[in-house]
């Protein structure tokens, strides 16, 4: 590309990348702990993934293969823009295939395909502090983390149960990392929480506006908080994906018309396409495909 020379590799200058890498190394050394870092202005607004982009820019090498997803999809505005950004400023290979990627930057989903050793998942985080909505003072929340005072986290879950009869938190569901720090897994659906536990991949979290980086190293214990009599449960779906027939995956609702018609399809578009390429078909595709999966009871 002609204009590559006008940018340093991956946009950030090398000093900044070193600073961020130091923060990342510290975060890996203290799983779940929020490391402050000098977040830079990025050519995108806060809330669009400035934290994730800085983390990705700092760990990206010329040989990496980058995948970017937004709510599981490779083809939404945010994902397309960030992918194009790194193609332009780093000239790296990009992919939509989970298995081919070395770095996956994500907004609010973990791919359905289990991640492998050597892969890195970079989360975009809006509010890194899990205690924030209960305790507005940063001085106090830092102290609470330092002293492992996490009773307040359960107060939130208690309120959930007392209001709804069950824990109604469905995303940004708090977890305890390696038996020590309570962490906000970013607004991923709680469906994805179990995937974080003992994952083979490195998981990095970047919050640009809040200037925090935290991490879950490979093979780390990640436990969702709960009560003995109200144990943690993930969402379940009544029907399989309408396109690929997949079960036990996270589904998005798609409205089909203005008469209440709707279908549920895989939120992970790559996973869905991959299954369809392998001949799986859901109810909506049944008429056009020769193979049909049994609908779940």
């Amino acid at each position, binding site marked *: 590309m002609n204009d590559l020379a006008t940018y340093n590799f991956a946009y950030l200058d090398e000093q900044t990348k070193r600073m961020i890498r130091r923060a990342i190394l510290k975060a890996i050394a203290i799983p779940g702990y929020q490391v402050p870092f000098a977040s830079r202005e990025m050519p995108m607004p806060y809330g669009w993934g400035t934290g994730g982009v800085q983390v990705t820019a700092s760990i990206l090498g010329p040989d990496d293969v980058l995948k970017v997803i937004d709510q599981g999809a490779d083809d939404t505005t945010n994902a397309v823009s960030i992918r194009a950004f790194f193609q332009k400023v780093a000239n790296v290979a990009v992919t939509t295939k989970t298995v081919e990627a070395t770095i996956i930057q994500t907004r609010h989903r973990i791919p359905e395909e289990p991640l492998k050793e050597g892969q890195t998942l970079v989360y975009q985080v809006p509010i890194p502090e899990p205690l924030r909505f*209960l305790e507005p003072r940063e001085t106090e929340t830092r*102290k609470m983390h330092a*002293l*492992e*005072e*996490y*009773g*307040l986290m*359960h*107060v939130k879950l*208690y*309120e959930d*149960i*007392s*209001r709804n009869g069950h824990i109604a938190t469905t995303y940004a569901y708090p977890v305890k990392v390696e038996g020590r720090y309570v962490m906000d897994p970013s607004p991923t659906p709680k469906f994805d929480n179990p995937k974080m536990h003992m994952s083979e991949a490195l998981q990095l979290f970047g919050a640009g506006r809040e200037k925090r980086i935290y991490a879950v190293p490979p093979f780390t214990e990640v436990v969702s908080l*709960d*009560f*003995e*009599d*109200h144990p943690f449960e993930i969402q379940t779906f009544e029907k399989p994906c309408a396109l690929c027939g997949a079960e036990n995956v996270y589904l998005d609702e798609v409205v089909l018309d203005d008469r209440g018609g709707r279908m549920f399809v895989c939120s992970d578009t790559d996973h869905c396409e991959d299954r369809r390429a392998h001949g799986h078909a859901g109810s909506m595709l049944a008429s056009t495909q020769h193979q049909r999966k049994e609908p779940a009871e």
Partner: protein
Amino acid sequence: MSAVPLLKVRDVSKFYGSRIGCRNVSFELYPGEVLAVVGESGSGKTTLLSCLSTRLMPSSGMIEYHMRDGQYRDLAHMGEAARRFLMRTDWGFVHQNPADGLRMTVSAGANVGERLMAVGDRHYGNIRASASDWLRRVEIGEDRIDDQPRAFSGGMRQRLQIARNLVTSPRLVFMDEPTGGLDVSVQARLLDLVRGLVHDLGLAAIIVTHDLAVARLLSHRMMVMKDGAVIEQGLTDRVLDDPREPYTQLLVSSILQV
């Protein structure tokens, strides 16, 4: 009564620059004993309470607490983690303004249950049952368990604050003007409640108040403070019925008779 003091206070002073907060305060508090600290505003009683409850570091002197393991610990040399743990398990602190001691935006049940969750209770049903039991004990209808204290009257808030503090069965409770700002009829009910709970639970308490009637009703012993120093102390009825010091006589003679 137990033979060993719960709290040993020796020569505690607190200076704000050259100004005196309190000076050379010494006393011992035994389990089940209620001590009232009286004096007018500015006499140093709140400073003393802050020092005792580790909310302020004394300029000099020593405060030792008899831990549940039987050891005395110097509060100034305790780690912050241990001190905060003590404050939410073995101690209670009832603020004059309930909003300072409650979480106003979470339900009454969660306010009471928070301390249980903080010490590792992870059974929702049990936590709720305890909360419900404590609301009943402080005379708050169990049907209010899911209401936020924002919707409560001043007296109810204060009772909720007391329940929130007592749920972990503390051995020592600090109270800062617990009836301040309440209507007289509401005060009477609260005093009666506190009196009953202190008696039933065998709590030791240090109550700071400028209201001698509160001291008379709740405390076994009292200390009168003036200009940062304790000028008279003794059995509550002795100090009130036979005050020795000029200032104490003035205080006692200033009580309005109804």
